[in-house]
């Protein structure tokens, strides 16, 4: 069977600085992969390269999403194909109401896939249902996107978008950063509800804490732009105890 995501020998740089240095990773549908690593290992770069952020130059390797060349697609095409990046720092967009943004994104993806657009009332019903589960106030949906939201609200909003858009591959970039334990539980619960046999996830995190709540099938250690070790979920606990020092040495 074709893997959901196949990254082969990926090398990427930004501003002439090489960040990803021959990264290999295969994620099958139904699997949750955690990627851990020290600061500067290339974790966020990997997430941005997968989502198609401009400014990164791919200097080698390839990324196949369900067998298709992901790197040849624009960010919106990737999203419509089913790639979703939950941002570490979701952006604030004054003047765009959250619900307008959700409707525009949802229907743009439907259009791209040749599906019928959803009417505003139908969409609003779906959004409200998801928002309720995530403890998001209906009033928040009318506010400009992420403007004046707390860190926890922003992450819940990312989870809401993910639940609404129903992607096939979820990339969660440091979803735990800036969250207290209660907010972390709510967000993790939202993510866990999206676990399914068709969906794969890459959970990027510096700390093991998040993985208590979103339990991975596989844990990778990323260092200096490549995967240096792969193991089961117990690897996360080991890292928590020993730290990343040995991997930093290994990379150097």
């Amino acid at each position, binding site marked *: 069977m074709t893997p959901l995501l196949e990254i082969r020998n990926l090398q990427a740089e930004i501003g002439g600085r090489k960040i990803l240095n021959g990264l290999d990773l295969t994620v099958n549908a139904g699997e949750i992969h955690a990627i851990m690593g020290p600061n500067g290992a290339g974790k966020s770069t990997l997430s941005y390269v997968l989502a198609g952020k*401009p400014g990164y130059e791919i200097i080698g390797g390839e990324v196949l999403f369900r067998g298709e060349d992901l790197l040849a697609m*624009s*960010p919106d095409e990737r*999203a*419509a194909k089913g790639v979703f990046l939950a941002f570490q720092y979701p*952006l604030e967009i004054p003047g*765009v109401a959250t619900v307008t943004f959700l409707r*525009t994104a949802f229907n743009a993806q439907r259009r791209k896939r040749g599906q019928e657009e959803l009417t505003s009332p139908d969409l609003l019903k779906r959004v409200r249902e998801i928002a309720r589960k995530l403890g998001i106030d209906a009033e928040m949906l009318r506010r400009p996107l992420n403007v004046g939201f707390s860190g926890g609200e922003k992450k819940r909003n990312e989870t809401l*978008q993910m639940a609404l858009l129903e992607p096939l591959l979820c990339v969660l970039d440091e979803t735990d950063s800036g969250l207290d334990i209660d907010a972390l539980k709510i967000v993790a619960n939202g993510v866990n509800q999206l676990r399914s046999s068709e969906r794969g996830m890459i959970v990027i995190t510096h700390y093991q804490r998040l993985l208590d709540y979103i339990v991975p099938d596989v844990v990778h250690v990323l260092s200096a732009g490549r995967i240096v070790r792969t193991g089961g979920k117990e690897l996360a606990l080991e890292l928590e105890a020993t730290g990343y020092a040995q991997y930093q040495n290994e990379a150097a």
Partner: protein
Amino acid sequence: MNAGIRPIRTQAELGLVDVYTTSRQGLPGGSDVAAVRAAAFNHFALAGLPHPRIEAWRYTDLRRLMRDAKPLAAPPDAEARAMAHDAGGVFAALGFRRLVILNGSFATDISDLADLEAGLTIRSMAEALALDEPLLSQGLGTTVPADDPALALNTALAGDGVVITVSPGATIERPVHLVFVNTGPTPAAMVTRSLVVVGGGARATFVETHEGRDQLDYQINTVLQLVVGDEAQVDHVKFTREGSVAIHVGTLLANIGARAKFNELGFIAGGAVVRNQLFVLLAGEGTEANLRGLSLLADRQHADSTLAVDHAVAGSQSREIFKAVVDDEARAVFQGKITVRPQAQKTDAKMMSRALLLSDRAEADCKPELEIFADDVQCGHGATTGTLDDQLKFYLMARGIPDKEAEALLIQAFAAEVVGAIEHEGVRDALMDATVAWLGQRG
């Protein structure tokens, strides 16, 4: 030969002398008005058309942009009346009271003058001038002293317009829509002048639309003089979408009384050259003025919003926000000058201008000025010029929103800060729709 320095006359300046000389006998008004016109034209003739060496016209060289003078428009015929039917369409669905100023003349027969609310009067400026009333013969009703060549030219040549009064204490629920339209068929100049006097404690909303034929080389010089009485509230929206090669010079002279509230928005979305100048005198204590502008420019359009706010007495507040979206090789200009006179203590004024450049060849010029003579005031200004935020655009695209749609959403958001502040929901929605329509044309 005269030894004094004479400015070299351009073809347009020579043409204007001709237009004035041949038209002045036919212009409305008695001998008092004629004398005011003669003085104004002499004033204009000495200075000539505005050019960049006049500080207030630094970025709009009308002497260069105006290649020739057009004859004053002929009174509209039946064909013109028929063509004017759809004018002012941006606000058509809102049921406002339409007053049509067609090819420079107030066309009462196609205007809605039925069932005037108590306290509302509407007349033609030409008729009012013919009566030589003191209110109008004093500088044709000048409500704010302003020394400006375009205004002087208007005083000399103004033909028609409307004179509206609202009695003290009256609330006019139904907004009044001044529909300015030029149907051609030949290039002409429309010089119009209107006066709106709103009595103390009254409330009224006025919208203006200015439009005309694309590819028709016409010229507009329009003046609105406004008096807002003590404790009155007036909302005014001017929507300018002239034809593609037209030149539009518009002047607002607003005199605002004590504890009054004045909300102003200038929306510019069309015309080859548009100059919108506002002279706002906060003449009474405790006045609040919100002055806003939004220009949406493409191709080689040039739009200049120039603002002079005069805080003349103590305790008034003004907020100015002017934005421009500039595509292709268009150029947006904002000049904003706030004057705080010595006695105007406790003045609170904040001015902001923002330009969004959508192309490498687009240009925005911005010149804020504060002239403060009082010592206990809060005044500030800010200006930004930038491009669309790539990070925000990426965030939208990462959710599946295509490139152009993501840009449109961000531009709408940029515009919404200005348009969204309009109190009247119908006007607000109509202007957001106009913004979306403009974005649609970007392709």
